[in-house]
């Protein structure tokens, strides 16, 4: 038996060698014989009826394969939750990037010209572009009303608290759309063969989501659809659902042409047409006692879902459940709704609703602090959830988390008290204003409520003919370290070395459905199943007396070889079972929303340039409790990467909309942080463990997206003594607040704040 633990060690990334030598194969690196290239003709208006499609004569259309909605063999929809989103518009368009026609040709250059040579005549209909317009219901653009989904979370009697309150604090907070901006654009290759059926290879997070969508679209049985994930160059939620659309398009062209078809988006098409983070608006009204205790509050959380429902109900749910943050609310009423607009559907992006509602909450906590004359530290300390108390959904915190202690450590690591005092003094004289801000937050790991039970994930571990072991999951690698950590877990459970364990390519023909690779669920939920499945292999070998209690890796290989030679294929499968005590009431939205929460306190230090109004983040402390850290280098990488994306969310990344369409879909004018823009991001972990996760792990992937934006904006307020409640917070917004405000003050407030 090996003596050192593999879990907890920074073993090298499993697929790392291919990545650093340029040998790793992404979808655009793959080519099939006789392959055509595919392209998408999209709507150019936000809403209307398609009157006529004309093909201009400068193109020899005989050379092209052309697909319209009529060519769809099965149902014209991208199956997800609701089946409201068509694969190709059939007579009606609902957003300005809606796919209408597909073209394929062997020459990519001619293809691009052909897309331009399709003229579409529309009868325009009135369109809706903001949540506020949608709420007015002047034009019903989706369903019977304008609402995809609403939730109500109620705890205690919030109506009774207002008269007891010493202070009532109100605020409204908004966040903008954010593009995932994975560096690898979306892409798919499809091939159809009447014998074997349909195969797609692509850049994607969830092979079985694509599988489900293709079955429905093509009217094919499960065994005749195969989905293979290629190396995927970043995803962040952005390749959770839209790959189903692109796979569907490539599949339709492949079926009609009888040839393999590759569709690779360019950057502008990817940014404009695929999903982005939901824009949000949160209103808080909070009753607070004289000593700064929250008595109760009303939280109204609204997100812009775009033109189709897609994942909006799920994003909304997570946002609503996280809206109360890591604080104790004796009473609360959270009303959440996702509304329709005529923009491309918004979708999954790391954090999934929580960064939006937590931005609002953590800005609001600073506003409460100011109202009750307490420090931002003290207001949080007095309201932190304690072990034994209940969350907004009534879930009892059972683990021994001490948020006060976590806060103390973050303050110490960031030298908060000294800096805050120093900056306050310096700001009185200097032009350059400095500030420091904090945010405390939590993130639930895994699917919400009964979600994991419905997913009912299956995981396998196989002992192969040659005695090697491989993990069988549909969980995908797109930078987070899925392959590495799941192999660490299997090796640890089997008492083997890391290099003794491999993992199958995420190919629906090879691996069971272990659920989508989303929701910070892979290590905690899928990892736990890998652990069980691996133990199954070991138990079977022991029970058949092929393996002693103590063994070397070579003895284990021999035992596997012997077993396979005697009994044939040797696979251990495990299906998810809801842990006891994790009970959720979907109707009332009460109970255990998540099997585990990660907890964090982040501290941001900023300076604001007096001439450019540019905010720079000078130091960043990210302290979190994430259960057991299974691979310190990878875990640190997740946190730093998430913080960097969240700095972009807070300060740089602004989607400019014009009639539902993104106007700045290029890396030149949509600005993400470069290596020169970021502060030192200092990462610290606390490890309490977690009974429900593999070797005590919780999910960590999304957590670091939640806290940085409010910490940074709180720091900007500390620096300038002016509150900002909308992100992204750009230099022009600060200029307006400091200089423009004076000019605008003569106007009534209603004249402002219009987007």
């Amino acid at each position, binding site marked *: 038996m090996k003596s050192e633990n593999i879990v907890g060690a920074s073993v090298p990334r499993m*697929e790392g060698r291919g990545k650093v030598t340029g040998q790793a194969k992404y979808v655009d690196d793959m080519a099939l014989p006789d392959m055509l290239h595919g392209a998408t003709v999209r709507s150019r208006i936000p809403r209307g009826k398609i009157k006529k499609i004309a093909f201009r004569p400068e193109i020899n259309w005989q050379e092209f394969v052309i697909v319209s909605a009529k060519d769809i063999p099965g149902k014209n929809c991208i199956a997800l939750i609701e089946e409201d989103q068509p694969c190709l518009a059939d007579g009606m368009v609902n957003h300005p990037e809606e796919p209408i026609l597909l073209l394929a040709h062997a020459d990519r250059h001619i293809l691009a010209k052909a897309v331009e040579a399709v003229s579409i005549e529309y009868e325009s209909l009135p369109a809706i572009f903001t949540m506020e317009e949608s709420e007015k219901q002047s034009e019903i653009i989706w369903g019977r009303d304008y609402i995809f989904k609403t939730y109500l979370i109620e705890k205690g009697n919030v109506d009774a608290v207002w008269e007891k309150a010493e202070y009532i604090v109100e605020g409204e907070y908004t966040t903008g759309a954010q593009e995932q901006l994975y560096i690898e654009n979306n892409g798919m290759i499809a091939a159809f063969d009447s014998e074997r059926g349909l195969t797609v290879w692509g850049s994607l997070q969830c092979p079985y989501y694509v599988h489900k969508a293709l079955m429905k679209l093509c009217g094919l049985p499960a065994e005749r659809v195969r989905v293979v994930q290629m190396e995927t160059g970043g995803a962040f939620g952005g390749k959770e659902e839209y790959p189903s659309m692109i796979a569907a398009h490539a599949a339709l062209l492949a079926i009609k042409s009888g040839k393999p078809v590759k569709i690779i988006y360019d*950057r502008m098409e990817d940014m404009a047409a695929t999903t982005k983070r939901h824009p949000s608006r949160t209103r808080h009204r909070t009753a607070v006692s004289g000593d700064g205790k929250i008595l109760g509050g009303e939280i109204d959380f609204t997100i812009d879902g775009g033109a189709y429902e897609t994942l909006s109900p799920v994003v909304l749910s997570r946002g609503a459940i996280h809206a109360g943050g890591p604080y104790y609310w004796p009473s609360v009423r959270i009303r959440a709704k996702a509304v329709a607009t005529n923009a491309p559907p918004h979708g999954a992006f790391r954090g999934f609703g929580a960064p939006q509602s937590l931005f609002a909450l953590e800005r609001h906590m600073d506003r409460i602090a100011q109202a009750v004359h307490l420090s931002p530290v003290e207001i949080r300390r007095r309201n932190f959830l304690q072990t034994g108390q209940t969350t907004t959904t009534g879930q009892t915190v059972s683990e021994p988390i001490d948020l006060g202690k976590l806060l103390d450590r973050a303050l110490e690591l960031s030298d908060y008290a000294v800096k805050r005092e120093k900056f306050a003094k310096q700001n009185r004289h200097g032009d350059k204003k400095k500030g420091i801000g904090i945010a405390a937050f939590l993130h639930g790991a895994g699917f919400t409520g009964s979600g994991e039970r419905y997913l009912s994930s299956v995981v396998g571990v196989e002992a192969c003919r040659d005695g090697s072991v491989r993990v069988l999951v549909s969980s995908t690698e797109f930078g987070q370290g899925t392959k590495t950590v799941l192999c660490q877990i299997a090796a640890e459970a089997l008492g083997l070395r890391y290099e003794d364990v491999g993992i199958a390519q995420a190919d629906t023909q090879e691996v069971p459905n272990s659920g989508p690779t989303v929701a910070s669920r892979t290590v905690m939920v899928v990892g736990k199943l890998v652990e069980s499945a691996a133990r199954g292999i070991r138990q079977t070998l022991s029970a058949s007396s092929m393996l002693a209690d103590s063994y070397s890796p070579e003895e284990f290989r021999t035992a596997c070889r012997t077993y396979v030679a005697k009994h044939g294929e040797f696979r251990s499968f495990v299906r998810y079972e809801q842990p006891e005590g994790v009970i959720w009431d979907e109707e009332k939205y009460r109970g255990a929303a998540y099997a585990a929460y990660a907890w964090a306190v982040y501290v941001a230090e900023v300076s604001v340039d007096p001439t450019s109004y540019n905010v720079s983040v000078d130091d960043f402390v990210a302290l979190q409790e994430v259960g057991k850290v299974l691979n310190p280098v990878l875990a640190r990488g997740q946190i730093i990467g998430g913080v960097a994306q969240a700095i972009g969310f807070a300060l740089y990344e602004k989607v400019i909309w014009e009639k539902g369409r993104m106007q700045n879909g290029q890396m030149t004018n949509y600005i993400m942080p470069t290596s020169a823009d970021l502060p030192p991001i200092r990462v610290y972990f606390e490890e309490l463990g977690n009974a429900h996760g593999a070797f005590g792990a919780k999910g960590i992937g999304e957590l670091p997206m939640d806290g940085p934006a409010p910490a940074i904006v709180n720091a900007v307020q500390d620096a300038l003594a002016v509150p900002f409640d909308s992100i992204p917070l750009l230099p022009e917004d600060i200029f307006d607040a400091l200089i423009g405000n004076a000019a605008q003050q003569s106007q009534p407030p209603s004249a402002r704040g219009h987007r």
Partner: protein
Amino acid sequence: MVNGQQVTVRVHTMERLLDMLRHELGLTGAKEGCGEGECGSCSVLMDGVLVNSCLIPVIQAKGTDIVTIEGLSSDKQLAKLQQAFLDCGGAQCGICTPGMILAVHHLLRKRPQPTLEEIREGLSGNLCRCTGYMQIFDAVMQAAERGAVT
């Protein structure tokens, strides 16, 4: 010359160097991220200078010495740099990694012992969405310490 070998191809003079490398020579290590010289994932060395191959027409590359990630991989010295990326977590999804490694190689040629500021500046033309760059900086420091590029 591409990766030390004489190469002759017949393509349109305005074909992008990136497409020529990927489609004609099968060197797919250089990636297209943006197609407009912003992201740096198509970085290659042209006569020792770091360029975005998506912005270079083939005619401009004629007669030059091009080095791609595939060319560096056979370089014994570079193994240290690649190892540093693996050790430090400098590669996550890997799509920016070939370009990033070429940028680091180029930087270390000019500045074998770079300061953190020089690293930040030197890599600011190569975007990475996964790592937040810190572990790439760690990898550069480790590689410099071990004399990865001389």
